């Protein structure tokens, strides 16, 4: 097996290395990917049609809104899949772990530091979500950081403490809410005569003109993404760390 694997890897690798000879040089501003109409339009027109300085967020949440919506659905389905694969109820979890379960929250220094850190992390995560169209950041990053703050709480103080703030049912409802916010905002555009996820049609109800309506709508869908990512990240951790029993934890 090792031998055949090595042969396959060498053959494929040689072919790909030969193919790199035809690639445009690294950093060449006139490479086909950078010369194309699409990226030029994104760079020059994003600020005209959305008033958002961060092109990546604008393309992510507005121009390619369908893509991001279904990526969020993929994350949701992955989270549901993990719960379906791992979650066990009662004492049917199988063999006990090889490692003794540490008694939770025994170290006062760790607990106090964690309690000081978590609000700051959550505040920064909210800033990242809300300020995503002016600086690096957005729903995915902010959502992961919010989820990581709950994971930190679970690591330092034990899973029950974190579960009191983000229970299993609450996590699933939150994840579904995120997708409903995103898709619902798209449906709201339909009621004002636009296409699905055509944010410019929402300007009668949002402050500012058509461009500002797109900018504000980006914030709404980023919040939806952040809800889903937060809940699913915590659900993934809590199921993996306890083998689906959701007790004690690491």
């Amino acid at each position, binding site marked *: *097996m*090792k031998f055949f*694997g*090595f042969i*396959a*890897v060498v053959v*494929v*690798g040689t072919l*790909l*290395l030969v193919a*790199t*000879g035809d*690639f445009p*040089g*690294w*950093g*060449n*501003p006139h*490479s086909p*990917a*950078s010369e194309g109409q*699409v*990226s030029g339009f*994104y*760079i*020059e*027109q994003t*600020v*005209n049609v959305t*008033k958002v*300085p*961060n*092109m*990546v967020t604008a*393309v*992510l949440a507005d121009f*390619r809104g369908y*893509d*991001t919506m279904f*990526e969020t659905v*993929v*994350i949701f389905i*992955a*989270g549901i*899949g*993990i719960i379906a*694969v*791992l979650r066990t109820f009662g004492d049917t979890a*199988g*063999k006990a772990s090889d490692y003794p379960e540490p008694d939770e929250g025994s170290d006062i220094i760790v607990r106090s530091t964690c309690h000081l850190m978590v609000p700051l992390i959550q505040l920064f995560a909210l800033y990242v979500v809300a300020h995503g169209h*002016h*600086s*690096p950041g957005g729903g*995915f990053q902010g959502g*992961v950081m919010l989820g990581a703050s709950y994971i930190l709480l679970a690591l330092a103080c034990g899973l029950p403490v974190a579960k009191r703030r983000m229970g299993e049912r609450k996590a699933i409802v939150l994840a579904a809410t995120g997708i409903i916010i995103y898709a619902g905002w798209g449906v709201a555009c339909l009621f004002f005569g636009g296409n699905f996820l055509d944010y410019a049609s929402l300007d009668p109800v949002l402050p500012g003109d058509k461009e500002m309506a797109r900018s504000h709508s980006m914030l709404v869908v980023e919040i939806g993404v952040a809800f889903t990512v937060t809940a*699913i990240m915590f659900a*993934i951790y809590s*199921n*993996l760390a306890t*083998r689906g029993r959701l007790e004690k934890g690491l």
Partner: protein
Amino acid sequence: MELLAAGFIEDNIVPKFNYWIYVILMMIGLYAMITKNNLIKKLIGMAVFQTAIILFYVSIGVKEESGIPILGHGQHHEIVEEGKPSGEVITKDEFANPLPHVLMLTAIVVGVSTLGLALAISQRIHGSFGTLEEDEILDQLRPGGHD
């Protein structure tokens, strides 16, 4: 002499180095996925493979002399508040290509969800077979094996 060497590297190695490394990383990942016996090692190989693809995409979007794809505060103010046409303020070569960044940003987050799902399945496998080694699992599955 030093300048000569630097010039040689800059002309012949730098334009393709990212692509060579992307191929090498991808092959490391593929080799690990094919030959490693342990399921967690296979998953690490899968993650290395995935980052190699992302490296390829991000390398495509780089331009010489380009910065991050976010408008400066001054440029944003000139266009939005003072109403200058964006073609005068923005030059295309000043910003990295944002399209590969967008595609890869979602790929990373979806990648960690699928990694989590794969880890969940390998935990179930460990629960049923008591091992993560592929050949031992196959031994137990074979009729007449242990168990």
